[in-house]
């Protein structure tokens, strides 16, 4: 038997993941020996490892598709860009959460550690080359998130939503795995690049394959939070501590996008006709339920949860177009959405105080009197999320709708436009409450300097990317040719 050479594994391509695993182990070990007073070291180390991972990713960036570890790992420019975005998102999420966690006595190393393992799961999914890797990435991410939701052990609501999330998530993972196993059984391969050919050989219209595809779609839809697999979204967003909601609402969306791209667009691209119709149903339902139910919400976290569901519908619109334009538009939408969502949840964290969550819409009453600047930032974020020009959310919606119209689904674009008009109502309500209602108290906005500065940058990013959307669009076009 020939001895396998280490060099044939092409390990250097996967340096970012290897670095991240080492960093996680270091953070874990250091955290054990820290006293509660010096817990900031864990926080600093976590941020440092994110910076390190970014440097490693840039240094080992690839200009074309490369595989490693016997095809289980794929590196491509899209993966590099998405990874860098994921690092940034997680770093911003950590920094937003810092003050809140400190005030609530939740400032423990495990929040950061679980955040980093979730990030590792996202990275694994981003560069997954086989269905097995995809699944392990999904598990790594989901398990971290379940634990994060239940992180505040004194909160009954959090424990309940974690339990719901765990049970439903386990079923969804099982569904995904079942779909993978059927596809594997019929094609005989787990490798995504071999799957492309094998599916054509077997025949994309084979009933067994479509049966397996339906299970895969159900699993993906659950991870996205698309209707009718959305039941966990409002409860988890509402029940989890706000920093965890912020985390769940942002970085994992990148993972969901990449999950759909790797499995559907890369692995099963021959079956586009089958998954297109399934995704149309999911997208339309998500936009309807998400936008209509969001109107009735009084809790801002719950409202943003339903708004997420409707945005997922838009991301799915881009993917279901099944064209390069559509994938690019969906990527642009995902990245824009992550920037907007992290800002909106960041505002809740900024306004929260000791014993005050600031997660109801009425908690934003008269924010303009208390802090005109942060009212303006929130207004920009809400306008952008609603898709009002000149903010980035508008261009994201435009790109996705363009891709859908290009493949001849004009009615779908019309439905999407109509429902975004409905959506405008509840975003504008937040703005109305901030500008035209009397404040309930006269307490000034607390919040540390870092959070203030970051939120300012976050709000301005939404505006600047909206005025100059070219840079981000070009980036998506360059990495997804």
């Amino acid at each position, binding site marked *: 038997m020939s001895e396998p050479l280490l060099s044939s594994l092409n390990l250097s391509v996967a340096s970012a993941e290897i670095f991240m*695993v080492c960093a996680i182990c270091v953070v874990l070990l250091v955290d054990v020996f820290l006293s509660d007073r010096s817990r900031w070291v864990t926080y600093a180390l976590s941020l440092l490892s994110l910076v390190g991972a970014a440097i490693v990713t840039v240094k080992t960036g690839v200009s074309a598709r490369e595989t490693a570890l016997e095809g*289980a790992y794929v590196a491509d420019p899209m993966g590099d860009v998405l990874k860098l975005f994921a690092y940034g998102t997680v770093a911003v999420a950590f920094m937003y959460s810092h003050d809140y966690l400190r005030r609530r006595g939740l400032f423990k190393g*495990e929040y950061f550690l679980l955040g980093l393992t979730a990030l590792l799961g996202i990275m694994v999914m981003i560069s997954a080359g086989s269905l097995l890797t995809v699944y392990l990435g999904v598990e790594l991410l989901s398990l971290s998130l379940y634990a994060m939701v239940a992180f505040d052990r004194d909160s009954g609501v959090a424990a309940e939503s974690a339990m719901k999330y765990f049970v439903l998530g386990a079923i969804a993972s099982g569904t995904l795995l079942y779909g993978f196993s059927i596809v594997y059984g019929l094609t005989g391969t787990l490798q995504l690049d071999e799957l492309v050919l094998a599916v054509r050989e077997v025949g994309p219209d084979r009933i067994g394959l479509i049966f397996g595809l339906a299970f895969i779609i159900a699993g993906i839809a659950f991870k996205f939070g698309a209707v009718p697999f959305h039941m966990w979204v409002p409860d988890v967003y509402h029940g989890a501590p706000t920093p965890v909601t912020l985390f769940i609402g942002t970085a994992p969306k990148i993972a969901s996008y990449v999950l759909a791209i790797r499995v559907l667009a890369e692995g099963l691209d021959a079956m586009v006709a089958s998954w297109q119709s399934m995704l149309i149903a999911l997208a339309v339902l998500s936009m309807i339920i998400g936008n209509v139910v969001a109107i009735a919400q009084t809790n801002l976290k719950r409202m943003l949860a339903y708004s997420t569901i409707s945005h997922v519908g838009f991301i799915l619109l881009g993917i279901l177009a099944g064209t390069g334009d559509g994938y690019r538009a969906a990527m642009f939408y995902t990245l824009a959405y992550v920037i907007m969502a992290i800002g909106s949840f960041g505002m809740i964290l900024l306004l929260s105080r000791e014993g005050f969550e600031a997660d109801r819409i009425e908690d934003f009453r008269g924010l303009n009197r208390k802090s005109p600047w942060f009212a303006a930032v929130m207004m920009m974020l809400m306008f952008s999320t609603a898709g009002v020009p000149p903010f980035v959310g508008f261009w994201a919606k435009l790109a996705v709708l363009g891709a859908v119209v290009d493949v001849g689904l004009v009615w779908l674009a019309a439905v999407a436009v109509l429902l975004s008009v409905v959506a405008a109502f509840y975003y504008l309500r937040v703005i109305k409450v901030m500008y035209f209602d009397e404040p309930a108290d006269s307490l000034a906005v607390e919040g540390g300097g870092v959070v203030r500065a970051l939120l300012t940058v976050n709000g301005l990013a939404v505006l600047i990317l909206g005025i100059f959307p070219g840079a981000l669009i070009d980036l998506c076009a360059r990495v997804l040719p």
Partner: protein
Amino acid sequence: MTITEILFYAFSAVLVVAALGVITARNPVHAALFLVFAFFNSAVIWLLLEAEFLAIVLVLVYVGAVMVLFLFVVMMLDVDLAQMKEGFTRYAPLGIIIAVLVVVEIGSVVWVKHLGVGQQSAAVAVVEGYSNTRALGELLYTKYLYPFELAAMVLLLAIVAAIVLTMRHRAGLKAQDIAAQVAVRAKDRIRIVKMDAEKPSETSSPEKQP
């Protein structure tokens, strides 16, 4: 019949009996022990099929770890059988339908085999010196190295998550802290009160006097 075949049938028969025991035993502890017995027998059948690594893993992992844990749970939780059987008649029709479906499925698979469709050729005898364990190991550490390492990360995460969610530093625990015991000083433990010596008064009872 060769000796292998005799062994196979013997162990298979015991396996079937043990499996029946799992679902018929009234006592949950007995059922769990029957399951252990069934695992042992299937491990032997795997050995007969020359899958010695899987056989050993089955015994080590399932019998050694999983079933013992299971027994602990069964013994520690006071399972009320009467309560569990409450919905029996209500769910019986559904159970019967599923049972019939499974029997029909198994029957059809066996029938198709019998008709000669999808006939499998007999397994090729392995060459001399072939090691099951070595072959598995080589595959795990080369082709499936990445998933293998990721699975290790998932396990590490599971440990961390379990500890995060269950470990609590409660106040008032009687745990021993040796450093604190050594560092303790007399004035932390006892309060020395200066007071004047008292004479025994006339009225006090005689037995209290020294």
